C-alpha cells in the first residue's frame, strides 16, 4: 500500500529542536486520516519525532534514513478514531 503524504514538511535546514516543534505544530493542524511527511537532518529527530508522534496520538507509518544525504524521512498518519482530532495532541 502506498502512502502519498498530503502535507510535506522540509526541515532539512532547521537545527534541533525546530524540526520537532514544526512537526508538533503540523500534527495539531493535520485532519484525521491525512498523512504528513517530515524530512530532517537533525540526528536527534530519530528519537524525538517518534516520541512526539506517539504523544499526539498519531501513527508513525515509516522512518527512512539516507546516509548519503544524512536525511531522515518520516511518514506520519493522524488516525481516524475518536479523540484523534487536533485537540488530542494538546
Amino acid at each position, binding site marked *: 500500500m502506498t502512502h502519498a503524504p498530503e502535507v510535506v514538511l522540509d526541515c532539512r535546514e*532547521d*537545527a*534541533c*529542536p*525546530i524540526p*520537532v*516543534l*514544526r512537526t*508538533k*505544530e503540523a500534527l495539531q493542524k493535520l485532519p484525521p486520516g491525512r498523512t504528513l511527511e517530515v524530512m530532517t537532518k*537533525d540526528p*536527534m529527530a530519530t*528519537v*524525538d519525532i*517518534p*516520541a512526539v508522534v*506517539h504523544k499526539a496520538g498519531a501513527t508513525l507509518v515509516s522512518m527512512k534514513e539516507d546516509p548519503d544525504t544524512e536525511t531522515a524521512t518520516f511518514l506520519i498518519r493522524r488516525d481516524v478514531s475518536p479523540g484523534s482530532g487536533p485537540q488530542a495532541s*494538546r
Partner: protein
Amino acid sequence: MQETPQELAARAILPALRGLVARELVRDHKLTHQKVADLLGLSRPAVTLYARGQRGRAIELRRRADVLMMVQDMAGGLARGDLDARGLMGKLDAAATYVLRKGYACELHGQIDPELRGSGCDLCMTATLPCNYFHPWRSDPHEVAR
C-alpha cells in the same frame, strides 16, 4: 571585556527568553502577572517589567521565528500544566544554547568584546553542548518506545 558564551547566556539570553515566555503567558494565555510569576519562579514586579519589555532587552530575539516557536512551546506547556519548573529550566537552557549555536548572540558578544569582531570567532558554535531541548523524553527510553 571578555565574556564567555555561558556568561553571555546568563546575562542576556536567558532573561530575554524568560521575558518572551512571560509576555506570551500574559498576552496570549491571559494569565495574571502573579500566576506567571508563580510559574516562572519570579517576583510579580519582575513579570510586570518583562511583560512591558522593560527587562530582558539586552538581545533582540522577538523577530526570530525559530526562537518564538520554542517560546510558544514553553508557554503553552506551562499554561496547560504539562511543563513543570524543572522541565522549564531544561528547555530554557536548551533554548539559550540554541541561540548561541545559531550565532544570534554574536553581534552582542562583539559589542561587549570588540576584539571578537572580524576575528572569525566561532566559539559558540563549537564549544557549546548539543541541543537537549527534549531531554525529559530522551532520559526516559520507555516513554520513547511506547
